[in-house]
């Protein structure tokens, strides 16, 4: 690895966010153990990350907001398009009339037949449909002493609550390794992966949650599995998971059905 590669492949950011593969991480660390310039960048990046985490969250207009704005303006935009199209149709029909009289008899057009106007596309993109809100989490404190896996999980989920999903991953992953049959661990590991853009890993974790059988997390696992598939643009599998979500008739039935409807449009 060299300094140019570090910049081009956004290695520094991915390193600080724990998103490098093990061989990549190893290679980058070996590089900065010998390269003063890159190590200065790592130090600065880490200090920046630390400082930015201390600062209050910055308001950023989410894509959902811009989508909302699109929806708000959509009727007005559609009305303008309808008026323009109707105007063009009327004008061209009027200009064509003499020619039509010579060439052929005018077609019988019922005045009641609505003019078909291509409305502007308001169907959200796959990327927008793949957007996720973090699954809610509140720590459940069990009576008696907790085992190590639960302790690790609760500790890691403190990062999750602070929306620091990348840092939650190692602890939640450790909890999954220690207790592979606990559905909540697998589910939130999937959620962390999904929220950090690691959709393939998210799919593995959600599928595992589903495979653990009927649990409080089954419905959510199917729903977020669908979101992960949408993120991978695998619409067929996403639709399948959304249909399974609907079959639970739970709290995610309505949003799953709505996404299915939008996918069919």
């Amino acid at each position, binding site marked *: 690895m060299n300094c140019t590669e570090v910049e081009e492949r956004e290695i520094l950011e991915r390193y600080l966010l724990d998103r490098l593969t093990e061989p990549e991480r190893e290679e980058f660390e070996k590089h900065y153990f010998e390269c003063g310039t890159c*190590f200065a960048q790592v130090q600065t990046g*880490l200090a920046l990350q630390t400082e*930015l985490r201390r600062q209050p969250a910055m308001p950023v207009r989410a894509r959902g907001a*811009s989508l909302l704005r699109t929806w708000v303006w959509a009727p007005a935009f559609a009305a303008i398009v309808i008026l323009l199209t109707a105007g063009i149709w009327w004008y061209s029909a009027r200009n064509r009339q003499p020619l039509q009289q010579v060439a052929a008899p005018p077609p019988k057009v019922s005045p009641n037949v609505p003019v078909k106007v291509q409305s502007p596309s308001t169907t959200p993109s796959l990327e927008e449909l793949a957007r996720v809100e973090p699954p809610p989490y509140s720590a459940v404190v069990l009576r008696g002493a907790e085992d190590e896996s639960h302790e690790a999980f609760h500790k890691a989920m403190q990062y999750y609550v602070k929306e620091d999903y990348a840092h939650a991953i190692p602890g939640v992953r450790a909890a999954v390794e220690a207790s592979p049959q606990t559905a909540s661990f697998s589910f939130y590991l999937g959620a962390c992966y999904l929220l950090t853009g690691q959709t393939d890993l998210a799919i593995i974790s959600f599928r595992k949650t589903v495979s653990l059988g009927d649990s409080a997390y089954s419905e959510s696992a199917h729903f977020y599995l669908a979101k992960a598939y949408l993120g991978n643009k695998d619409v067929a599998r996403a639709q399948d998971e959304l249909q399974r979500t609907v079959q639970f008739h739970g709290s995610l039935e309505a949003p799953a059905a709505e996404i299915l409807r939008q996918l069919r449009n």
Partner: protein
Amino acid sequence: MSLPSATSAGELRNLAERIRQGDASAETELVHEFSHRIFVMGVVRTHDREAARELVQDVLMAVIGALRNGQLQDADKLAAFVHGTARNLINNQLRAQSQAPALDPLPEDLAQACSAEQLEDAERVGLVHQALERLGQQDRKILWMTLVQGHKPGEIAAALGLSAEVVRTRKTRAVKKVADLIRKKLSRT
């Protein structure tokens, strides 16, 4: 506080040899050269600053012990040897925190050279705070969305109404601006 050194391969080779021959000042140089790197690596891998501080001492003690005993076969690979030792100890700690064998602490003078204050780079964080204030609101948002929220340039671009290329350029420029300011300030001290 020291700037990250850019010790040449020849100097590192020499350092390993001097430690093998019992040169105490070479051990201090080794601590200066690698303690920050081990600390940063520990923080990134464990997400625990306290654990990372302890790791620095453990790693340096293990490395110095090995060098004193002439266990480093190829003196050209000192940096890789330190990195490998750090990785192994971090992995051991992550696997079994309580079962990791306790190593002897560093001697007082060497421990001073990698004190918590030095490793934490409080001055650097303070300078970062100043540098962030000098950046424009949008550049700060780009950095925040990248380093805290973990968004990719394309996602940030969509949220801020910019192109992904502009986001990449502004992010790189902002990090360099902060790094430059830190370098200038630290080189004056």
